[in-house]
C-alpha cells in the first residue's frame, strides 16, 4: 500500500529502485514462506521428541500396513490386493476399498528416496509424511489467500495454518492418516479454483481437475469440494457475477474431475451415481443455460430477448420438472436415498445416533462441544467474523468463495467433531485476512499521524512499521514489497498477468481505507493488543502440539512422584501375539484394535476399523455380550483361536472395552435381537458393581476383563469405574488366560479345545448333539 508513496522518492531511479525492492520483497517472502514450512514441520515433531518415531493410533497402522505392501509388491499387486488377514472369513479387497492417495504418496516418496540411495525405512517415511504435507498445506494456504486478499493476508494465513491445533491434531509426526495429505489437497484445489476464476486460464482449470483428482484419491471428504464449488458457482450466477472465467473455472472441473474421480477404484461409478455428486451436475446444467442466455443476450436486441426468455422459461420449466421428477424417483428407489450414512448424518445430525450405532459409536463422529472450538481453533474463532467482514470490502468472486467456505465448514464442524479439520483452513484464511487488514489500517493510521514520517513518507515507512512489530509485521512489510513488484513490467508474461489480476481488490480497498485514519494512540494500543492476541495463539498452539496432541496412544505415559511411568502394554501384547502364536491364528477383539492387530501382531482378525460389514461387527459384539458358552460357540464357528480384550481397571485407563461395551451390546442387539440392551442396564445405567444385572455379570466381556482381578487387591476395585466389581470370584470354563500385559491393559485368552467342555464320556453324544442342534440354532448367529 505504501508502494505509490515509496516510489515517489526519486523519479530517475524509480525503476531500479523498484526492481531492487521487488527482489528484496520476493526474497523476503520466500524466506518467510520457508520458515513457515519449517515451523509447520517442526511443531509436529513433539511426538517424536517426547515419545518416539512411531505410527500413531488406529487408522495410521492400516495405512502403514498398506504402504508396506505397496512398497514390497508394487502398484499392480496393490490394486489387486485381496487381504485375507482381516474380516475373516470374508476378507477385504483393499485395492478397491481404500483411498489410495496417502499410500501412493508415501510409497512414491519412499521409492524416490531409495532410488537416490537414501535408504529410509517405510516407517520413517510414513511417520514424516504428515508434517511434510502440513508444510505444503500452509504454502497452499498462502497461495489461496494471496489470490483472495493479497500476499500479506496470505503470509498471515499461512502462519496461522502452520500451527492451528485442529490441524496439528491430525498431522503430528506419526499420525499417518488420510487427512494429513487431504487438507493440503483440499486447500490446493480451492487455490487452483480461485486462480482459474481470477485468470480464466484453461491451464489452471486443468491443474484444478488434477488437484481434485488427488483429493479424491486421498479422502472421502472430496464430496465437500464437489458440493462447495457448485454452491459458489450458483452463488455467483445468482448474484449476477457470471463471467466466462467462472465458466472456465467450473465446467472443466466437473467434466475432467468426474472422469478422473471415476478412475479411483473406491469411487468408481459413485462419481456419477450417488446423490453427493448430483449438485455438481445440476449446477453444470445451470451454468450452461446461463452461458447460453448470456450469449443470446449478446446477439439479440433487448426486445427480442424478452420474448425469447418467456418462451424458453416456460419450456425449460416443464423439462426441468420432468428431469427432477425422474431424479427423485431414482434416488428414492435406493434404500439410503442414494446418500451414504456418513453424509446423511452430516445433513441430519441426529440420523446416525438414531439408525447407525456403528457410526455414532465413534467419538470423532459426535458433535463438538464449545470448549473444543476454543481448543482447536483458539483465537481464530474471534477473528473469523472480522475476516468475513473484510471479505465483503469489497466483495469479489474469490472473497465470496471464502465466505461461503467458512460458513459451510462452520456448519459441518458443528455436526461432527472430525470435520473441525475442514473448518481450520477456512478459519485460518479468514483470520489471516482479518489480521492483515487490521494491521494495514493501524499501521497506515500511525504512518499518517507520526510527525516525522507523514511529511517524508519515504522508504522508511515500511521499516518504521516493521520495526515496531515482529512476526506479523514482516508479513505486512513483504506485502508492501509484493505490491511494488506488480508495478514493474516483468519478463514472464504469465506471471505478469497473474499478478495483475489480483491487484484491483487490494488497491481499491487501499484507496478506500486511506480515508479512514484512526487516532494514533488507539492504533498503537490496538496493534499491541493484536500482537498480544497473536502471541496468545502461538503459546496455545505450541502447548496443544506439545501436550494435547503429541501422544501416540499406543504408548501411554503418566507422571508420578517417582518420575515418568511408561505404559507400553499394547505393543507388549501385540509383540507377544506376533511371536508366540501361529501365523494363521485368528484373533477376535472389538473392532477398534483390528488395524493394530493386523499391522503390529500380523495376525488375522475378525473385524477391524474399516467398519464395512455391520453384521460381522454385530457378531463379535454379540459374542462379547453373550455368556461364556454361547460366546465360545460363536467364536469357534469363526475359527477364532484367541480373544483379546482391553482392560483399564487396574491402572485407570478409561477407554477400555468395558466402557465401549455399551456399543457392543447396541450394535450386537441391532442385528441379533436376542441381545437386548435393557438386560444390561440397571435403572438405565451400565454398571459393573454389585447392582449390575446378572446378564451383565455373566457376559463374556465382564468375565474376560475381570478374571482373577479381585486377587490383585482383595476387593476388586475398578479404578476407571471407581467402584468394586459385582462378581468377584468366578472361573472360566471355555477360555483360558494365555497372556496379560504388565499393567493388565491387554488380556489375551485362548479358546479351550472342544473336548474339555464335555464332562463324562457317557453323556458325550447326547450333550454334544443337543448343544449343537438346539443350542446353536438359537444363539449362534453364524449357523
Amino acid at each position, binding site marked *: 500500500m505504501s508502494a505509490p508513496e515509496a516510489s515517489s522518492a526519486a523519479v530517475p531511479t524509480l525503476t531500479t529502485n523498484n526492481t531492487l525492492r521487488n527482489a528484496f520483497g520476493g526474497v523476503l517472502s520466500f524466506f518467510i514462506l520457508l520458515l513457515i514450512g519449517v515451523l509447520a514441520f517442526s511443531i509436529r515433531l513433539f511426538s517424536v521428541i517426547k515419545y*518416539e518415531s*512411531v505410527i500413531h493410533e488406529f487408522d495410521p497402522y492400516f495405512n502403514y500396513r498398506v504402504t508396506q505392501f505397496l512398497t514390497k509388491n508394487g502398484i499392480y499387486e496393490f490394486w489387486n490386493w485381496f487381504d485375507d488377514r482381516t474380516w475373516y472369513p470374508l476378507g477385504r479387497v483393499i485395492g478397491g476399498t481404500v483411498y489410495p492417495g496417502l499410500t501412493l504418496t508415501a510409497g512414491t516418496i519412499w521409492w524416490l528416496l531409495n532410488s537416490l*540411495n537414501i535408504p529410509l525405512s517405510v516407517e520413517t517415511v510414513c511417520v514424516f509424511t504428515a508434517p511434510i504435507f502440513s508444510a505444503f498445506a500452509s504454502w497452499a494456504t498462502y497461495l489461496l489467500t494471496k489470490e483472495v486478499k493479497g500476499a500479506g493476508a496470505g503470509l498471515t494465513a499461512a502462519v496461522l495454518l502452520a500451527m492451528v491445533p485442529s490441524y496439528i491434531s491430525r498431522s503430528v509426526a506419526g499420525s499417518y492418516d488420510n487427512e494429513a495429505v487431504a487438507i493440503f489437497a483440499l486447500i490446493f484445489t480451492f487455490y487452483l479454483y480461485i486462480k482459474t476464476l481470477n485468470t480464466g486460464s484453461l491451464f489452471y482449470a486443468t491443474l484444478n481437475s488434477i488437484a481434485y483428482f488427488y483429493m479424491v484419491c486421498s479422502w472421502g471428504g472430496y464430496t465437500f469440494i464437489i458440493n462447495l464449488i457448485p454452491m459458489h458457482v450458483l452463488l455467483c450466477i445468482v448474484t449476477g457475477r457470471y463471467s466466462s472465467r467462472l465458466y472456465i473455472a467450473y465446467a472443466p472441473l466437473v467434466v475432467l474431475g468426474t472422469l478422473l474421480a471415476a478412475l479411483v477404484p473406491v469411487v468408481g461409478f459413485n462419481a456419477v451415481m450417488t446423490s453427493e455428486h448430483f449438485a455438481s451436475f445440476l449446477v453444470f446444467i445451470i451454468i450452461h443455460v446461463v452461458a447460453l442466455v448470456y450469449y443470446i443476450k449478446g446477439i439479440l436486441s433487448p426486445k427480442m430477448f424478452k420474448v425469447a426468455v418467456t418462451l424458453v422459461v416456460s419450456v425449460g420449466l416443464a423439462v426441468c420438472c420432468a428431469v427432477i421428477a425422474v431424479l427423485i424417483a431414482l434416488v428414492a428407489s435406493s434404500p439410503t436415498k442414494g446418500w451414504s450414512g456418513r453424509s446423511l448424518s452430516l445433513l441430519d445430525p441426529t440420523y446416525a445416533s438414531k439408525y447407525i450405532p456403528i457410526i455414532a459409536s465413534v467419538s470423532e463422529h459426535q458433535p463438538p462441544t464449545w470448549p473444543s472450538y476454543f481448543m482447536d481453533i483458539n483465537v481464530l474463532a474471534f477473528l473469523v467474523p472480522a475476516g468475513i467482514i473484510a471479505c465483503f470490502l469489497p466483495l469479489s468472486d474469490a472473497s465470496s468463495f471464502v465466505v461461503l467456505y467458512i460458513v459451510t465448514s462452520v456448519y459441518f464442524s458443528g455436526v461432527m467433531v472430525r470435520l473441525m479439520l475442514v473448518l481450520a483452513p477456512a478459519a485460518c484464511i479468514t483470520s489471516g485476512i482479518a489480521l492483515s487488514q487490521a494491521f494495514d489500517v493501524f499501521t497506515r493510521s500511525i504512518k499518517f499521524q507520526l510527525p516525522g514520517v507523514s511529511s517524508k513518507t519515504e522508504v522508511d515507512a515500511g521499516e518504521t512499521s516493521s520495526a515496531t512489530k515482529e512476526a506479523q509485521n514482516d508479513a505486512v512489510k513483504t506485502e508492501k514489497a509484493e505490491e511494488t513488484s506488480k508495478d514493474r513490467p516483468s519478463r514472464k*508474461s504469465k506471471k*505478469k498477468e497473474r499478478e495483475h489480476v489480483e491487484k484491483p481488490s487490494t488497491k*481499491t480497498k487501499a484507496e478506500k481505507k486511506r480515508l479512514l485514519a484512526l487516532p494514533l494512540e488507539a492504533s498503537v494500543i490496538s496493534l499491541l493488543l493484536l500482537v498480544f492476541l497473536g502471541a496468545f495463539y502461538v503459546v496455545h498452539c505450541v502447548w496443544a502440539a506439545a501436550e494435547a496432541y503429541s501422544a501416540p496412544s499406543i504408548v501411554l505415559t503418566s507422571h508420578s512422584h517417582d518420575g515418568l511411568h511408561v505404559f507400553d502394554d499394547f505393543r507388549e501384547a501385540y509383540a507377544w501375539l506376533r511371536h*508366540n502364536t501361529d501365523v494363521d491364528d485368528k484373533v477376535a477383539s472389538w473392532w477398534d484394535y483390528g488395524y493394530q492387530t493386523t499391522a503390529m501382531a500380523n495376525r488375522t482378525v475378525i473385524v477391524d476399523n474399516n467398519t464395512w460389514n455391520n453384521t460381522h461387527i454385530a457378531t463379535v459384539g454379540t459374542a462379547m455380550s453373550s455368556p461364556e458358552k454361547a460366546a465360545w460357540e460363536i467364536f469357534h464357528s469363526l475359527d477364532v483361536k484367541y480373544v483379546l480384550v482391553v482392560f483399564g481397571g487396574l491402572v485407570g485407563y478409561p477407554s477400555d472395552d468395558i466402557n465401549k461395551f455399551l456399543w457392543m451390546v447396541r450394535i450386537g442387539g441391532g442385528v441379533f435381537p436376542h441381545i437386548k440392551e435393557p438386560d444390561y442396564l440397571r435403572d438405565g445405567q451400565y454398571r459393573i458393581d454389585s447392582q449390575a444385572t446378572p446378564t451383565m455379570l455373566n457376559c463374556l466381556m465382564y468375565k474376560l476383563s475381570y478374571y482373577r482381578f479381585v486377587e490383585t487387591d482383595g476387593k476388586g476395585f475398578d479404578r476407571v469405574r471407581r467402584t468394586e466389581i459385582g462378581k468377584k470370584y468366578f472361573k472360566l470354563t471355555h477360555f483360558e488366560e494365555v*497372556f*496379560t500385559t504388565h499393567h*493388565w491393559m491387554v488380556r489375551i485368552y485362548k479358546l479351550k479345545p472342544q473336548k474339555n467342555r464335555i464332562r463324562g464320556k457317557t453323556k458325550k453324544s447326547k450333550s454334544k448333539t443337543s448343544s449343537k442342534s438346539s443350542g446353536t440354532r438359537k444363539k449362534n448367529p453364524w449357523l
Partner: protein
Amino acid sequence: MEISRFGLLVFTIAILASPAISDLVLSKVDRRIYLTSQIVRISSSLKVENGGPEMVSEVLLAFPELQAKKLAYLMATQHEGKGKAKNSAAALPVEVASPKDMPPALTFYSVSLPKGLAEGDSFTFDVLAVYTHALQPIPEQITQADIQLVVYQESAYYLSPYVVKVQSLSIKLPDSRIESYTKLENTKIHGSEIKYGPYENLPAFSYSPIVVHFESNEPFAVAQELVREIEVSHWGNVQVTEHYKLVHGGARSKGEFSRLDFQARPNLRGASAFRYLVANLPPRAHSVYYRDEIGNISTSHLWGDSKKTELLIEPRYPMFGGWKTAFTVGYGLPLQDFLYKLEGKRFLNITFSSPMVELIIDTLIVKVVLPEGSSDISVSAPFPVKQWQEAKISHLDIDGRPVVVLEKTNVVPEHNQYFQVYYKFNKLSMLREPLMLISGFFFLFVACIVYMHADISISKSSASYLAKQQWEEVQGAIQQVQNIISRCLTTHDKLEASLRDLSRTGDVQACKAARKAADGLLKELSKELKPLLTFLHSSPSAAQILPKVEELVAKERELQEKVMAKHSTVVDGYEKKSGARDIENRVALQQQKLTALRQEVDDLLEFIDDI
C-alpha cells in the same frame, strides 16, 4: 535313553577295535563339568605319557557323534599350573582328524603338541570343550508354577582311544536340588557338586553312561539367528547393529500364563522364565538403542564407566519356555578404538560374537560394511568361518559398499574373540559424498538461475509473440500511469490530512507549505505522465483502452484542480478567521463534487485494472 543305547554300541565297537593306535597312555585325567548355565563346559586336564618307542607329536581326543554335534568350541592349552592366568597359556593347535581303524561313531580331534614326545616323556595340557543344547529338559512341558528340570548325560569314564591310568570327574550343578543321578562306585555328592572317581587303569574306549537330572532355572536364552552388522565410517564411528531372534530354549511352557501369579510370586510362579539379558558393550559405546519392528522398547538400563558399558535389556514380556521374541540392539563405537593402520593397510579389530552374557547363538551372521571404495579386503578369524562378500547400497552410494559376511553356527561366548578385517582405503574417497551433494545443489541453483534469466519461448518472430510483447509493454505503461495517478490521489489525501491538521492546530503556514509541496509534486507527476501517454498513443495495441486512460487522466486533473481550490478556500477561511461552520458551508458544494469525481476516478482505475 538313546545315549545309553549308543553307549552300549560304543562298548561293542571298543571291544572290537581294541588295539590302540599308538602307545600313548593318559596317566592322569581330571575332568570338571560345569552345568551352572545352559552352556555345558567341560574342562579336562590330561597328562599324556609316551609308552612306546616312537616319537609322538599328536594326541587324539574322541567324542561320540551326538556330543560332537553339540560341540561348539574346543580349545587345548598347555598346562602351566594353577598360579598363572589361563589366558597367557599358549593355545595348542586342534584339528579334526580321521584316523584309520577307528570306530565310525566317534569323531576325533587331534591336538598337536609343541614338541614331540620321546619315550617316557610326559606332557600336561588342558582341554576346554563347550557344548550347546546339551541339557535336555525333562519333563519337556511345564506349567508356569513348575520348576525346570533338565537332564545331562555323560560318561563317567573318559572316552579316549588311549588307556587311562587315573581319572576323576566332578560335575558342578547350579543348585543343590538334584532330582536323580546315576550312582556308580566312588560317587560322592557335596552340596551342588557330584564327584565320580577316581577310577584307575581303564582300557581305551571305556564308557559308562551317567545321567544327572537336576533343577536349573538359569536363563535358557538361545538366539536362533543373530545378524550383526558392523558398519565402519571413516568419519569417526563404528556402528554396530544386532538383530536378535530369541527363544527360550528350556522346557516348553504349557497351560495358562497368569500375570497375577507372576507378579505376586515371581520366584515361584515363573522361576523358569527369564526377564532380562545383560550385554557387556565395549567402553565408550554411545547412541545405544533397543527396539523391535513395532518401535522402541522402553525397558532397558545402561551403565557405563571408562572400562565397560553394561546394558540390561528386558524383552517386552517375560520369556517363558518356548516363547520367542525378536529385537534389535544398536550402538556406536569410537573409530579410533577399533581401526588401526598397518603397512599401508587398515584393519578393523573387533569382537566377533554378541556381547550378551551366556547366550547360545545357533546361527551367527557377521556383516562388516566397509566404506565405499575399499579394496583388497581380507579377513583373519581365530576359528573357521564361512565367508563371502556382497555389496550394500547405503546413503548416496553409487556402486555400493563392500560387505564381508561371516557365518558361523553354534556360537558360544567363548567365540567372542577379536577378528580382523584388512582393507585398503583412500582418505579422499571420504569427500566423495559431500562433494556430490555440494555439486548437486550447485547445479540445481545454476539451473534455476539459467531458467530465470533465459527467455525460452519457442518462437521469437511469430506474430502472437510480438503482439504479446507489445501488449506487455502497453500494460507496463498503463501500470505506470496507474501508479502515477494513485500517487496523485495520495497527494490529495495528504492535502486533506493537512486540512484536518489545520482544523486541529490552526497552523496556517504549515498547511500552506503542504500545499506548495503537493503542488510541486503534482506538477512533476504530470510531467512524468506525458511520455507514457505519448507512448500509448503510438502503440497500436493500446487503442482499445486509450480512451479510458485519457478519460482517467482528464478526470484526475479536474480532481486536482478541485482539491486545490478547496484547499485554498479553506485556508483562506482560516486566514480570515471565519467560523468553522462558515468554511464548511462554503466547501460543502466542492466537497460533493470532489467525492463524485473521486468515485469516478476510482471506478476508472478499477476498470483499467480489470483489463
